[in-house]
């Protein structure tokens, strides 16, 4: 059981690291395209960076989802396997990753909602910049308190205090 639990934790680790590599690749690819094309197509702006962030968070979330389905599958084998596997997520040092996951989901959800609004009510896209700033404000308003409460419990558990 211990070996299987470690294997599942390893899978989660590999998937997470993989999506990090993808994020890096995507940003490098975009910067390369911007350099190669001095025209209008890749000149950035809030819309393009939102698209980059939407894609990176989307890929990161599926990567985690794949691992998360495998760890939850362990529930079917009883407490011995599941409780050991899940301990990975309960280490105090895992908290920053958990906060990152919550932040990525929140951003992807709000930004996805903004895309959907523009698709079904195209007139709204005329004010796309204002919508983006409202979205960022909502993101901070929801993410900051969530991150604060999550980090607080982890800091209390860490060996530093």
């Amino acid at each position: 059981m211990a070996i299987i639990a470690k294997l599942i934790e390893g899978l989660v680790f590999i998937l997470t690291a993989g999506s990090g590599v993808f994020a890096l690749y995507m940003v490098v690819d975009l910067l390369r395209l911007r350099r190669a094309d001095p025209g209008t197509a890749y000149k950035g702006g809030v819309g393009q960076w939102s698209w980059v962030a939407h894609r990176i968070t989307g890929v990161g979330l599926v990567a985690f989802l794949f691992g998360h389905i495998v760890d939850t599958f362990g529930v079917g084998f009883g407490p011995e396997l599941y409780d050991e596997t899940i301990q990975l997520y309960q280490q105090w040092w895992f908290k920053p990753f958990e906060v990152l996951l919550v932040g990525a989901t929140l951003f992807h959800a709000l930004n996805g909602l903004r895309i959907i609004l523009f698709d079904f009510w195209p007139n709204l896209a005329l004010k796309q910049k204002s919508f983006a700033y409202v979205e960022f404000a909502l993101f901070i308003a929801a993410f900051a308190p969530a991150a604060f409460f999550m980090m607080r419990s982890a800091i209390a558990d860490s060996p530093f205090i």
Partner: protein
Amino acid sequence: MTTVEQVYQKHRPEAFEAKRKPSSFEVWSWFFMRISGVLLLFLVLIHLFIMHLVGSGVERVDFAFVARRWDSVGWKTFDWLMLFLALLHGTNGLRIVIDDYLRKPPLRTAVKALLYTLTVVLMIMGTAVIVTFDPTVGA
């Protein structure tokens, strides 16, 4: 009645400029991403709130906690719906990303084949663990 295709055409006129119309699969894929997105907004945010913020968050999650939640058909249905939509939304999203970055047909086809196989396996694993859940296993 506006059809889904008309809505898509309004938003993506360039997709209709080529000689042939976009395949109806692409139209439905576009529509599915939006419908599943709206549903996931509620499912996923509630899930994160319950699992990561309320009480002592993820530290309190263990087999007994899952057993208490899955004692209710309501939560089982909630979790299964979230699994179903997130997995299809995520896989369809990855398909679009693969189309953007992998331009050579052999590699593109191979990676997609791998992705779809994984998705089917994970859908079966996720469904099985919810449907066949037995709180006394291993006790």
